[in-house]
């Protein structure tokens, strides 16, 4: 690094250009990295038209896993990150723990961007402990409950929207309905995977695995253990299909009708349609009543790392991309569900329907779910990792026949190791 710095100094002294990323025609080059589908492709060209001095070079990675691994490697190496870097919600707690490596967007971003652009909880979850704004919110994944009408009917459960409301009213009623379903269906599972249920419950608690002083509270917060006991008991009563989310077996489970309900963020409808296939068209339905209130799963933020050489211009681009108008375009292009209040009120959202799910007005339904999400849960450093790498395997072990007590110990130990 010292070498590069020295070279830059020499260049600057000679009147050369120290930016390094200024292209020959004097344009400022901004790099932006995203993963999966953000729906921004057409927006870049539009931005370049509006800002003739800017040239945007986008970098897209396919999957979130390798994307974030690369992100943290480059953060560790101290170079190589793009000017605008997208971060997924599940990795946000790790990024916030390293907030010194990111610019405060409230400071360097355009003045016109105010907190009321976003839903409260989305905006809050983009800030670190000291209130620095690390990421502008892009999309979200408000939770609803998807269920199989035909399987409900066959097992003697109500399947109409009004009827299922009672079943999905609270977690207690949800698990009770599960017992009834398993008995009536002759062994078909109630839900796909224990961790899918547990994570939704966990995210409804006011704080996650840490308190606001970043102490691990997994053993001292009774809410966590209570959720654990409830979910693992349901597993032992045969309610879980024991399919690891996004595994090959899970994919097959949709087609094979292995389970009757699925926690459903807005983007899950597309997954179900693709996996379950045309032969199950019209059998799936989605309910706006979600046990324990609402929730969110997924969605991202745009950050500007301190590595960026053009932080102001980068923040400006990120601010523009997360404007309501732009997010509506992204929603139309790739279905990324907007987190901006104005975008949620737009006619595009209100008019959206989904044929596969029996013509339901899913836009309207999920907008309502987005407003139901309470305040942002405080997540300490490593919270997302505990969820994914300690809680999920421990629950999988219960599904594979281990005792809940032993697995609880596994979760406690695993969480301690991640927090260390």
């Amino acid at each position, binding site marked *: 690094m010292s070498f590069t710095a020295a070279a830059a100094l020499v260049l600057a002294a000679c009147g050369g250009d120290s930016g390094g990323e200024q292209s020959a025609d004097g344009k400022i080059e901004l790099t932006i990295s995203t993963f999966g589908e953000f729906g921004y492709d057409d927006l870049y060209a539009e931005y370049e038209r509006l800002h003739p001095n800017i040239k945007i070079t986008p970098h897209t990675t396919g999957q979130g896993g390798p994307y974030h691994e690369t992100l943290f490697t480059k953060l560790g190496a101290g170079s190589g990150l793009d000017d605008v870097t997208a971060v997924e919600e599940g990795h946000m707690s790790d990024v916030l723990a390293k907030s010194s490596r990111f610019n405060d967007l409230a400071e360097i971003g355009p003045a016109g961007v105010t907190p009321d652009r976003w839903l409260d909880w989305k905006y809050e979850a983009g800030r670190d402990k000291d209130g620095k704004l690390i990421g502008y919110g892009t999309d979200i994944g408000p939770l609803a409950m998807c269920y199989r009408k035909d399987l409900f009917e066959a097992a003697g459960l109500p399947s109409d929207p009004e009827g299922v409301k009672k079943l999905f009213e609270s977690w207690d009623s949800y698990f009770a309905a599960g017992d009834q379903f398993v008995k009536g269906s002759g062994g078909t599972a109630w839900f796909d995977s224990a961790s899918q249920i547990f994570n939704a419950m966990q995210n409804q608690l006011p704080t996650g695995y840490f308190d606001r002083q970043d102490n691990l509270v997994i053993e001292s917060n009774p809410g966590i253990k209570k959720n654990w006991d409830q979910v693992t008991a349901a597993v032992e009563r045969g309610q879980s299909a024991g399919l690891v989310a996004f595994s090959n077996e899970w994919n*097959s489970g949709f087609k094979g009708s292995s389970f009757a309900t699925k926690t459903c963020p807005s983007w899950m409808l597309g997954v179900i349609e693709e996996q379950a296939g045309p032969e199950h068209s019209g059998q799936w339905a989605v309910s706006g009543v979600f046990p324990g209130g609402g929730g969110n799963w997924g969605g991202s933020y745009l950050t500007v790392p301190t590595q960026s050489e053009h932080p102001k211009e980068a923040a400006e681009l990120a601010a523009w991309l997360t404007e309501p108008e732009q997010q509506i375009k992204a929603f139309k292009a790739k279905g990324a569900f907007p987190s901006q209040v104005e975008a949620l009120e737009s006619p595009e959202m209100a008019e959206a329907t989904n044929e596969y799910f029996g013509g339901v007005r899913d836009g309207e339904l999920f907008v309502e779910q987005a407003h139901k999400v309470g305040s942002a849960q405080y997540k300490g450093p490593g919270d997302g*990792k505990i969820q994914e790498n300690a809680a999920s*395997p421990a629950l999988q*072990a219960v599904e594979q026949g281990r005792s809940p007590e032993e697995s609880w110990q596994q979760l406690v130990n695993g969480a301690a190791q991640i927090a260390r």
Partner: protein
Amino acid sequence: MRDRLGRWDVKYSPYLYVAPFFVIFGVVGLFPLLYTAYVSLFDWELIDDSPSFIGFGNYVLLMSDPQFWKVLTNTFSIFLLSAIPQVIMAVLLAALLNTRLRFPTGWRIGILMPYVASLVALGIIFANLFGPNFGLVNGIFELLGLDRVDWQANRFASHVAIAIMVNWRWTGYNALIVLAAMQAIPRELHEAAVVDGAGPVRRFFSVTLPLLRPTLIFVIVTATIGGLQIFTEPKLFDAMPGSNNGGSTNQFQTVTLFMYQSAFEREDLGYASAIAWVLFVIIILVALINFLLTRRIASAGEGRR
């Protein structure tokens, strides 16, 4: 004059020949190795401005970590299940390929195909074969009236499945290595043995095997090192996409996977570096034992002749 040049040539040109390797190694191998050794003495987070020196603290902690001993056992189990059949099959396959065949290139491409499989395809394929509920292998077991096996949950079964993955991928590669060596064996040695009345099996043991010694040492040493560093296969095998856990209770996590998890997931770079060095020492020891054993076995074969 010419003599002096010649002496210089003999004395110093060998260094010139090995220099490219050591120069490259200095940049891409030695620097990371020393960096890792240095980091292993600190409580060092992945992104850390002020790591604190703790001496051998990471090593002490590692020795008392039950997960380390569990993953070490897994590593040796998977290693033994894969390396031994792999080497034996490779020699057998090479002997088959060393006969006068029609379309020799075709056969070679055939057995080397697994080596060119992209990891993405490999993950998808094996998930489909060994899925506990919908997998092809369990489907066949059921057809044959056998019990289904939970390839993910059962510790030993998962080791077997991973070993199959490893063997599938590497046997052809090793077979071709052995084949290259077999083809360098002078033909008249075989002819002389035929004259002496030796059958094909005896010829194989008393002529071929001893002369394969340097190559077998290569195959066994590299299979040992590769086997103890096994990483890709258990990572791909986990049903949870991208997981480094090696199963719900680490039942098929290997040392390298554990190291990777410590570094990039738990962000404990100091601890991960300590694992890297312990693994390094273990591999050197095992490779050394293997090397000595191979030498004994091969020279015993020579003695019988």
